[in-house]
């Protein structure tokens, strides 16, 4: 009798185990609070939407994604602890962080543990460190800024430029890359103004820009600081063209700065206004789901989740090393892999390339003025 009961129990347990779907755990480590929440929370929502779509379509290799969120609180040391926690909890691949100051710290933990990491950070240093496990969802500033340099020199006709930048890992990367571009283009830097993360008062900075003799201003700060700067620039009637890379003309900045954002020109790697049906469809779905507009961070998060699906399915198993090896040098065509939204390639450093855009903010909306080829 006991033997019969044991056999029955074993058979039921085996049946139940067969019925259950094994989940694959994916960690999203993001700036869900603190100064970077304007970027990290949107990035995370982009990931959530993609994961829901992927799970509804059968998951990855038949397994559902178990998305686990970790809040870095926009603190590099905390982000490092969260990445370690995610690895201890056996994440297959890491998504995040967005702030470069955090990513340069936490990527070492992922590297030491051999866990592929897909980041939304854009500082040039991220992919220059020889980390074989780091991959971008948007290209670094060093790839976008040469396109912007040409715009400043040729389209605006400006030869004297003032630079206002965030004194963070992200800001330093963009600042250094722009200075190189300016030198190559023969643009004189007449003012060089660092600002602090979470800075709230830009009155002195704008006053210095006004008296610098600049013909244009290059702005390289994160979302909320960019918005506060634009509000102050409008308040003091700065009267100079303001250009930047991605953030300064992002939807979040436009929402925060309101009319003060009008006239800003920017190079953007990703935008919901891109003349690409897949991006517009994604953005419309995002708006409906979350009640606010998708910006470049939302699109980056969305693409990041789909990168995991496509690369894992190419590998054919949940093998972290094979995942990283496969992604180096990989190109994904949007017609075959619609989740990446645009044709994209990664090189052997994890840097990426794809088409990009020049935009201008007109009546509170991004207006695409030029589509630029991948470089």
């Amino acid at each position, binding site marked *: 009798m006991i033997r019969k009961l044991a056999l029955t129990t074993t058979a039921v347990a085996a049946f139940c185990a067969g019925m259950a779907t094994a989940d694959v755990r994916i960690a999203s480590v993001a700036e869900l609070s603190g100064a970077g929440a304007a970027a990290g929370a949107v990035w995370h929502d982009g990931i959530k939407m993609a994961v829901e779509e992927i799970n509804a379509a059968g998951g990855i290799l038949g397994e559902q994604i178990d998305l686990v969120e970790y809040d870095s609180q926009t603190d590099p040391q905390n982000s490092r602890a969260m990445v370690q926690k995610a690895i201890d909890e056996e994440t297959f691949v890491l998504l995040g962080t967005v702030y470069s100051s955090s990513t340069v710290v936490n990527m070492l933990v992922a590297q030491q543990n051999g866990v592929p990491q897909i980041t939304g950070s854009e500082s040039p240093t991220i992919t220059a460190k020889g980390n074989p496990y780091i991959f971008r969802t948007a290209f670094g500033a060093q790839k976008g800024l040469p396109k912007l340099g040409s715009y400043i020199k040729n389209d605006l006709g400006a030869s004297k430029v003032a630079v206002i930048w965030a004194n963070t890992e992200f800001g330093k990367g963009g600042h250094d890359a722009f200075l190189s571009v300016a030198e190559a283009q023969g643009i004189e830097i007449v003012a060089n103004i660092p600002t602090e993360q979470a800075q709230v008062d830009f009155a*002195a*900075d704008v006053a210095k820009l006004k*008296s610098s003799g600049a013909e244009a201003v290059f702005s390289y700060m994160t979302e909320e600081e960019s*918005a506060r700067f634009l509000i102050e620039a*409008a*308040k*003091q*009637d700065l009267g100079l063209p303001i250009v930047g890379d991605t953030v300064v003309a992002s939807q979040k900045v436009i929402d*925060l700065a309101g009319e003060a954002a009008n006239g800003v020109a920017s190079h953007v790697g990703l935008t919901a206004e891109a003349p690409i049906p897949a991006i517009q469809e994604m953005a419309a779905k995002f708006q409906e789901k979350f009640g606010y507009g998708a910006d470049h961070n939302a699109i980056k998060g969305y693409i990041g989740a789909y990168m995991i699906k496509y690369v894992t399915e190419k590998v054919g198993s949940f093998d972290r090393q094979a995942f990283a090896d496969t992604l180096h040098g990989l190109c994904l065509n949007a017609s075959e892999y619609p989740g990446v939204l645009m044709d994209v390639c990664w090189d052997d450093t994890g840097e990426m390339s794809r088409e990009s855009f020049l935009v201008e903010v007109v009546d509170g909306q991004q207006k695409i003025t030029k589509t630029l080829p991948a470089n």
Partner: protein
Amino acid sequence: MAEFLQILISGLSAGSIYALAAVGFTLLWQASQTINFAQGEFVMLPAFFVLVFTVKMGLPMSIAIVLALFLSVLLLGALFKKLIVEPMLSHGVLPLVIATIALGLLMKEMVKEFYSPLGQPFPGLFPHDVMSILGAKISVADFANFVIAMGTIIILQLFLSRTRTGRCMQATAQNPEVAKILGVDIKRMVMYTFLINGALAAIASVLITPIYLAKFSNGEVLGLVAFIAAIVGGFNQIRGALVGGLLIGVIDNLSAAYVSAEYRQAVPMLLLIFIIMVRPQGLLGTTEGRTV
């Protein structure tokens, strides 16, 4: 010259708003020996009341501001005194200080949880027009902020010195025992002080938030700046808090422009240390007696 003037006026505009919060510090200290370390959050919160009324409930801005002012007086004035200050005061200054730190954290986390951790746009109250003065372009908003903040403090000062209620409040602050013997309802006078602090916080909030954007963490900066302003000016004088606020606003902007943007936050702290060393009672403070 134009650049200096521009920075000076921007500093005075921001400083006048810091002064509103700093005056709140001194009022509460004078009336009830309460050092309110949630003062920054008191300035952060009313902006979110306005956003709830305008964005969530669709009310016009003017009505939203009036309702936010009323709510601030009620919650940050009366309720704060009844629920936090009165039960804690008998245990001494330090437990009350810790209680206000806890209250500030609670307010910050509640806004983050129930509204948003993201910065929110906050409409400006004034036209975007710009005036030209000696080559400097001064925005109407900066000018209006300065006028409203200074006007509020002057009206408060007149109320305290020229009205019977104001003089009773002064008497309560200077010597509560004697004031009580003279028939002053000291409990009511102390309550008035808390109500006034709630109103000052609301006014500061709607003036500063169009520049700072509405964010749960705004109180961290504002609270620290207002506290330094109150210490520098003199913790026991309204005019001291006023001078301290203006001074911090101007020094912050001048140091960012002419010393170092990286060390701009350190300069007011250095000033604080210097003042404590050479004049512990503050620039306009007195070493004896208390007045509101």
